[in-house]
């Protein structure tokens, strides 16, 4: 990638409000999670019944929950858990799915069919359902939830990578590389992967949002993050019966989930505008 192209990409990016806003929101959540890893204003495993269900005050910026825990601290720890879930689940998907997809694109035959049909099989079960199944078999817990979503992501990334790679494989420079005797692995890494990266990155942001939603959903059902660890989904569950009397309890974690998912989707959308060559042609034409 040349320097001028990079510069033009950045200039283009700054002209996309969805990308800027998405990046800002995502960055904000990431920073919150990082801050939580360093420390929260109050401990999240302490219970203080006397201070429960307080409205926002100078001491507790967002108020306290039904057990008297600081909502802001819970929210920050929840962000940390959500980000952890996203990073690991997408990481698993990238680490296994991308090589599998590349392999499937470069080869033909029974093994390729096997890989793609296996991914079809995984695809047939929504991530949340797989997670519920794993929780039923091996017990609820954040590790199992991450694994379930990660496995689902493998199939997603295998597909996206294969699709993008097949598209690149037909191009002349790949044929040229093959003609001068570059080994298939080198072609895959140096020629195919960089050109498929855009699609993979876009997919990664989307899957990140899916993972956060899955974590919230599973924790809401009691199958994800286990008490006393805070999670946005668990906070929503706790708030459910307090909705009419203490709406803030539901609004706070609900808004956090919305901001995170919205941010990631805008980011993905914006990245698509900038990185996807097909869209570029349509727009410029």
């Amino acid at each position: 990638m040349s320097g001028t192209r990079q510069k033009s990409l950045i200039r283009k990016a700054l002209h996309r409000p969805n990308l800027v806003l998405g990046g800002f929101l995502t960055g904000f959540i990431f920073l919150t999670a990082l801050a939580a890893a360093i420390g929260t204003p109050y401990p999240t495993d302490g219970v203080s019944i006397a201070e429960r269900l307080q409205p926002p005050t100078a001491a507790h910026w967002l108020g306290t929950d039904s057990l008297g825990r600081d909502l802001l601290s819970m929210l920050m720890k929840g962000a940390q858990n959500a980000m952890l879930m996203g990073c690991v689940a997408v990481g698993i998907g990238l680490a296994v799915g991308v090589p599998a997809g590349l392999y499937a694109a470069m080869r033909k035959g029974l093994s390729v069919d096997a890989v793609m049909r296996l991914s079809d099989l995984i695809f047939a079960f929504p991530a949340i359902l797989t997670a519920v199944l794993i929780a039923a078999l091996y017990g609820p817990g954040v590790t199992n939830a991450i694994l379930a979503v990660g496995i689902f992501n493998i199939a997603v990334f295998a597909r996206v990578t294969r699709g993008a790679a097949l598209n690149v494989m037909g191009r002349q420079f790949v044929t040229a590389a093959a003609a001068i005797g570059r080994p298939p692995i080198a072609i895959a890494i140096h020629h195919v992967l960089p050109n498929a990266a855009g699609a993979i990155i876009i997919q990664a942001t989307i899957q990140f949002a899916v993972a956060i939603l899955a974590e919230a959903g599973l924790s809401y059902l009691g199958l994800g993050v286990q008490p006393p660890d805070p999670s946005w989904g668990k906070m929503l569950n706790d708030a459910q019966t307090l909705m009419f009397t203490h709406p803030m309890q539901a609004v706070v974690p609900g808004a956090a989930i919305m901001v995170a998912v919205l941010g990631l989707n805008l980011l993905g959308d914006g990245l698509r505008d900038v990185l996807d060559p097909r869209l570029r042609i349509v727009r410029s034409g």
Partner: protein
Amino acid sequence: MRSKRFGIALAAAQMVALAATAGFAATGGAFAKDSLTMGVGLEPPHLDPTAGAAAAIDEIVYANLFEGLTRIDRNGAVQPGLAESWTISDDRLTYTFTLRDGVTFHDGASFDSSDVKFSLDRARAETSTNAQKGLFEGIASVEAPDPKTVIVTLKQPEGNFLWNMGWGDAVMVDPASAESNNTNPVGTGPFKLARWTKGDSVMLTRRDDYWGKAPALKSVTFKFIPDASAQVAALLAGDVDAMPNMGAPETLAQFEADPRFEVVVGTTEGETLLVLNQRRDLFKDPKVRRAIAHAIDKQAIVDGAMFGFGTPIGSHFAPHNPAYLDLTGVAPYDPEKAKSLLAEAGHADGLKLVMKLPPPSYARRGGEIIAAQLRAVGIETELVNVEWGQWLSDVFKGDHDFDLTIVSHTEPLDIGIYARPDYYFGYHSDAFNAVMDEIRDTADEAKRTKLYQKAQTILAEDTANVFLFQLAKTGVRAAKLDGLWENAPIQANDVTGVHWRK
């Protein structure tokens, strides 16, 4: 799926309501509703109270579908049921019951002394599947000299016998229908089963040939709404007229402010416990048990998990019982004492325990509070949320695989469970067993009260469990609905006396 079912049921309920309105309009009478829809948290596994421990069964069938020789009224007092009177011999071993006239089962079969003999013999038989066989253990023989008379002879005097005969597990059944009662309950009560829509509701309708005073309601529907926020929504939408026990106490506040509803907070027989598994060597040491009791602030749990509804207790006894003794002072909240007791017992470095929590909010929220309180004295607790089925199979039965659990024991006057050798928390005390034997052999009320208090004291001194609080009955009902029970002296939703005000 769920919302669809809900929608259909709603439509059906509206149709019923519409039909009722039309009926009244035709006769020109003043409009008073004669149907009731009541929400209950759990769906019963079946409808035979003589073959299941689930409270959900009695909460539908007791007094409504099935009746016993005696019945427990709303205040917990014993009243005549199918036996209109009885005499007790001087040695208190022989009870002669005189049965009521004109009692029939729902299927038309007549009720007489042979049914009583059958029901009691069936319940106390070797092969009986009755969940409370202990109620019948003292019976030596049951005779039916004539159709209206039953003579029950006991092995030894039993102070609670008439009370025991009022339990849902001791109701009268007909030999012809006894085995099919689980799906098609046939009793002597004023209501009969009209329809059981699995997963949704049980509908009862009034029968015309009831022996006693006919209830005011023509039909009663028990709707199963396990989810606490769905219960709120169902009440607000008018889908149910009453919830005898709200799943989440924090939802009461909004009904208190609403003139359409009346909030009634009563008492139950539910002693809520932090159960210490005394099959574990750790909890065989009374010092460790006492240390945990000192570490726990009961009022904080009542406030935090139950939003103030509930009464802290110090032993396994309901505060509304006349024999109740306030023992909350035996092991007061004292974290420093807890720490020093733990150190004395050789656990100064702390402990790691597993606490299994069933679904009710008293357990889930209470568990988080207790975990925080235990952490303060150096005990780390891993919280494991389980569903009821899992709780029954892992904690209550099976290998009893748990260190701690939180559960409310809602059976009335159930202090005797501590004398059971195989009960799930594994408590054993010879002194306590001796007191329970003495209670069984004592008739004098004042003496029994003293003995019950002695039994409570033994459990408190021993820290047989950590006794948290008495569960409150947090009911919400339509403001115009009269006659529902305020308290729950036994597991029941007796609707025979319920009516709508105009």
